[in-house]
């Protein structure tokens, strides 16, 4: 049964990302196609930025940068294995070839490789297949970004 409150949800809005060098991350994400939506200082009375960026291709592709990174709290190498962890965001591309274009471009602006573009076939538990081409990079603070082209399952 669908609760009526669900109907009020209109969209995915953003993912929050803690960054250590706001200017560096702003430069990276703007070069990655994001534009400034809103920027303010947070917590109030500080000079720390809290900034929502939305992507040129899709306003629901959005990140909120929190300039709160503390070197005392480095990103654990295996953070993706912690339950409750949001650990990557993913950009859909138009074509398989666009995964390679997106990956190469990200590397050219300073991202580092986590996984080169790779075609994969997932065997679904219902017996079908899900074909994807995907690549992963690390952003300036080690955050993980994925580029994917996903076919409808067969």
């Amino acid at each position, binding site marked *: 049964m*669908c*609760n*009526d*409150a*669900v109907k*009020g*949800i209109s969209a*995915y*809005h953003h*993912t*929050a*990302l*803690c*960054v*250590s060098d706001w200017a560096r991350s702003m430069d990276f994400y703007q070069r*990655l*196609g994001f534009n400034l*939506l*809103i*920027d*303010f*200082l*947070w917590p109030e009375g500080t000079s720390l930025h809290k900034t929502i960026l939305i*992507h*040129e*291709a899709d306003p*629901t592709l959005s990140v909120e940068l*929190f300039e*709160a*990174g*503390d070197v005392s*709290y*480095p*990103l654990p190498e295996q*953070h*993706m*294995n*912690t*339950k*409750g*962890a*949001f*650990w990557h*965001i*993913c950009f859909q*591309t*138009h074509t398989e070839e*666009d995964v390679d*274009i997106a990956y190469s*471009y*990200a590397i050219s602006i300073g991202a580092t490789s986590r996984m080169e573009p790779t075609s*994969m076939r*997932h*065997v679904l538990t219902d017996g079908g297949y*899900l074909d994807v081409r995907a690549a992963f990079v690390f952003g300036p*603070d080690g*955050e993980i970004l*994925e*580029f*994917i082209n996903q076919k409808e399952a067969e």
Partner: protein
Amino acid sequence: MDRNVFCKAVKGYHHIALTVSDARWDRVIEFYKGIGFHLKYSFHHPSGNGKRMAFLESEKAGYLELFGMGTGQLPDDRELMHTTGKFFHMCLAVDKPEDVDAVYELLLSLGAEERIAPRENIQRSSHEMDSRVAFVYGLEREIIEVIYLKVMQKKESRS
């Protein structure tokens, strides 16, 4: 290669990835079904480690990718929000201010825990933003925000 080439290659938002424990796998899926997602694809991790994976899909909010390999626990909020490179919450938009309260209550009824009850959030600095927001902890302590964004304009444009 320039920025425009990249932007033309990108179609848009696809998903955010969330790690959950194998023990709570079914309960987490039921939780997200309660806010409009459905189980779209279910498979196992390509590494062959036997861990479950799934794409949940929402007509309005895209995909949520689940990885059933989670152990341990997240650090407390202070550490979480200061961990460099950490994605530390996901946010869903609603249509009306009162929808923030309704979705917040729905999340609690599904087993979420209160983090910040619905409240007005007014920002006045380089940009102005009036919003109504609420935060909950999901079943694995993941932080979920619900937002209604009311006003947003550059301060300079109001002079």
